[in-house]
């Protein structure tokens, strides 16, 4: 256990912050349609929230929140949402990813397009978040040496 991980203040702050960061991530994903942001950025931020949690509370604790299996399924799910949307457009007679072809709201393909873009962004966000978490879990030191991660002062 490093000093940072032992610090009560940091632990508390992180515990409080993480849900807010996650919320912000969701906002960024949805906000992509109208301003800076989008699925990718949101996904990274969401992933960062979990990573932050795992850094402070340890990988094992982090894996309790997002297990390996869940992670893998989420990564696949995000892509499935995306590609599924594309295939959905084919089913309704459009080209692959031709959002306007889906008769969700008649006579307003732009509106449909907006909703489907949001859906797609959510898909991207899911995959990106899941992969970022899995990347961190894989790259960071294995559980047996847990706690050495932020303790880097000794290395000059």
């Amino acid at each position, binding site marked *: 256990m490093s000093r940072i991980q032992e610090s009560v203040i940091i632990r508390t702050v992180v515990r409080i912050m993480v849900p807010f960061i996650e919320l912000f991530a969701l906002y960024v994903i949805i906000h*992509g349609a109208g301003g800076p942001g*989008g699925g990718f950025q949101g996904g990274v931020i969401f992933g960062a929230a979990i990573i932050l949690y795992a850094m402070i509370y340890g990988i094992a604790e982090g894996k309790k929140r997002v297990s390996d299996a869940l992670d893998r399924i989420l990564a696949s799910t995000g892509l499935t949402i995306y590609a599924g949307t*594309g295939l959905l457009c084919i089913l309704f007679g459009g080209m692959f*990813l031709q959002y306007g072809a889906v008769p969700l709201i008649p006579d307003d393909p*732009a509106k449909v*397009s907006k909703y489907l873009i949001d859906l*797609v*962004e959510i898909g991207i966000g899911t995959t990106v978040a899941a992969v970022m978490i899995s*990347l961190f879990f*894989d790259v960071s030191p294995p559980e047996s040496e847990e706690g050495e991660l932020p303790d880097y002062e000794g290395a000059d």
Partner: protein
Amino acid sequence: MNKLALFVVVITGLMLIYAGQDLPPFGDPDTAMYQHNMTQYFIENSESESGVSNIVTALLANYRGYDTLGETTVIFTAGMAVMLLLRRRER
């Protein structure tokens, strides 16, 4: 080795500088790139066709949505690759 590396880098740099002579000036709206009907089309039509006001998002998710699918796949691939490399074997 270092000399060779330096040589390669300098060659590349010379190529970049060579190309730089004819690059369209930065910040100028009168370039072929900006005046190509593609850019103008996106600026004018992205809202009415995609329903989003962020043109970059419209491009990313709609006009070039397929690129983004590829991009997401790249991320997924990276995740899988790292998993393949660093995870322990399943029994």
